[in-house]
């Protein structure tokens, strides 16, 4: 599903250049639930952003679903993001003047799905995350956990091939975190490929594979026995 070879990325900070990713190689197969771990500054978020085509690498190869992602203009990148990728962010990134339902329906708007069908689909996904009754509420009327669940519903609404989550539990307390992880595990159980960036060990343990990043290189890549979040909820 995801294939990257010798990925490099550096940021220019004034006259200095900060080398963040120093040659990353790894592959993700369909249906995997991968945690990308590392301390802050290890490059894990940058890696996720490049995988999500929100940012571009300086060099290296990236194939997404056997399509090489290279020298893409914004229009093309937008198309791919819309078709292949769903995003969940630490800060939720919901549009605050739109209701939960409208937020979930937004990726479908960019897929040119009709209004009625959009609403039905969005409601279906809101129902899946258990927020059907909250459909007409604005984000600031929801709790952190609810916001993140709306964000997950939004990411899922476009039916992406890969779900990318950047610290999805970073702004949540542990109980809510486990609820969110439970939801993510269930989505994974349906066969969706998911990548999660986190620095919390317990969250990482709920995935099926942990990739450890340090100073821009992968130092560890192992499959683990998944801890189900269900038991903590």
């Amino acid at each position, binding site marked *: 599903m995801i294939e990257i070879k010798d990925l490099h990325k550096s940021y220019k900070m004034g006259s200095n250049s900060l080398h963040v990713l120093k040659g990353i190689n790894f592959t993700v197969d369909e249906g995997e639930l991968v945690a990308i771990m590392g301390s802050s500054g290890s490059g894990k978020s940058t890696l996720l952003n490049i995988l999500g085509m929100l940012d571009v690498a300086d060099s290296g190869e990236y194939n997404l679903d056997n399509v090489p992602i290279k020298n893409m203009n914004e*229009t093309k990148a937008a198309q791919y*993001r819309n078709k292949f990728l769903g995003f969940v*962010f630490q800060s939720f990134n919901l549009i605050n003047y739109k209701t939960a339902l409208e937020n979930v329906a937004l990726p479908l708007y960019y897929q040119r799905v009709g209004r009625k069908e959009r609403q039905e689909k969005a409601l279906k996904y809101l129902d899946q995350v258990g927020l059907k009754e909250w459909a007409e509420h604005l984000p600031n009327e929801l709790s952190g956990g609810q916001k993140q669940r709306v964000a997950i519903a939004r990411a899922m609404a476009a039916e992406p091939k890969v779900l990318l989550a950047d610290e999805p539990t970073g702004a949540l307390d542990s109980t809510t975190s486990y609820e969110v992880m439970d939801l993510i595990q269930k989505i994974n159980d349906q066969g969706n490929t998911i990548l999660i960036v986190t620095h919390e060990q317990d969250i990482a343990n709920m995935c099926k594979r942990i990739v450890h990043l340090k100073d821009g290189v992968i130092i560890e890549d192992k499959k683990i026995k998944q801890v189900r979040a269900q038991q903590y909820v």
Partner: protein
Amino acid sequence: MFDIERWQEIFDTIRKNKLRTFLTGLSVASGIFILVILLGFGQGLQNGIEQEFEQDAATSVWVWPGVTSKEYKGLNPGRRIQLNNENFETSAVLLNDAIEYKSPRIFVRGITVNYGKEALIYGVQGVSAQFQFIENCKMYEGRFVNHLDEMSTAKVAVIGKKIKTDVFNKVESPIGEFIEISGIPFKIIGVYGEYEDREEERIYIPITTAQRVFNGGNRVNNISYTLPPVDNFDQAVAQAVDFKNSLKTHLQQSHTIAPDDTSALNVWSAMEEAKRYYSLTGNIKLFFWFVGICTIIAGVVGVSNIMLIVVKERTKEIGIRKALGAKPWSIIGMILHEAIFVTAISGFTGLIFSMGILEILGPHIEVDYIVNPSVNFKVAISTVFVLIFAGTVAGFFPAWRAARIQTIEALRDE
């Protein structure tokens, strides 16, 4: 533009960002409003001044005497000049080709006017037949003094409409009634109307009668002429100046006045005066345009500012939309579509509102020099389009920049 989904998206955004939309709209609407009102008053001013000059024939030239201020050919300064019938007749013959209408005038003084037992306090003036056309008198009833009256020194009088309403309110028509001027009965033969009440408070009698009956001799107080109409305004002014100079030279010679004596003879031409006013209104109109354009520029700057802030404020939203798969052009399109929609609606609102005010109040405004302020619809509508266009351009660049920056940069924006 006809994408229904896009419209729904925009209406959603507008509905949920009422204050922002309102402020953008207000700056556009007020810009248009002020411009239209200003242009309207510019037009009103021109209308007013044009009307002011319609009161007398536009090509009229008046001459009245004064006192000499220079010694000339052995004559002392301080001499009072008196015009007479001869001046009128010779000038009329001499400058015959350049004259359309002509009339001498004499103010009859030291008299009493009575209608029955009622004493009237109106001025009596002796004029000749063509004076009617020089003063632009409109006859409401009867006729004006004619040549025959002058030949026969007829005791006839023409009164102003105001005199009719003030004095002859008990009879159906004043025609045929008699008034007594210093005890001599004069038959009323006509009622004339003028633009101003003040000019309707006169009693005109034939000049010959005025001279003979009231000891005028052959004296004349002033002489007035009109010149034949010319299509071209500048040509008309030139013609008036030429005529004025020839007339002045002729009268100076016949009264032995120094050619550079400015106080002995006064010659006034409406054309020259009109030219001064016309260039004044031209300048005032120009000034209004200038102020109006500055207002529009202020409006454009306001719209640009708001667009910049709107885009800045929405950078994160743009990032989110891009992460969800919005293409750059769809982002630009969305922002511009909203901007055009809001500026168009508010621009037309301002236009309709201001034109409505001009339409409703305009005809009632009749102070001196401002009559029926109105605005050219084409001009008004083009300014609305200019503003919409400016709003679009002003919105485009920040929108374009916001759509072009890396999605991750936009998402980080707080």
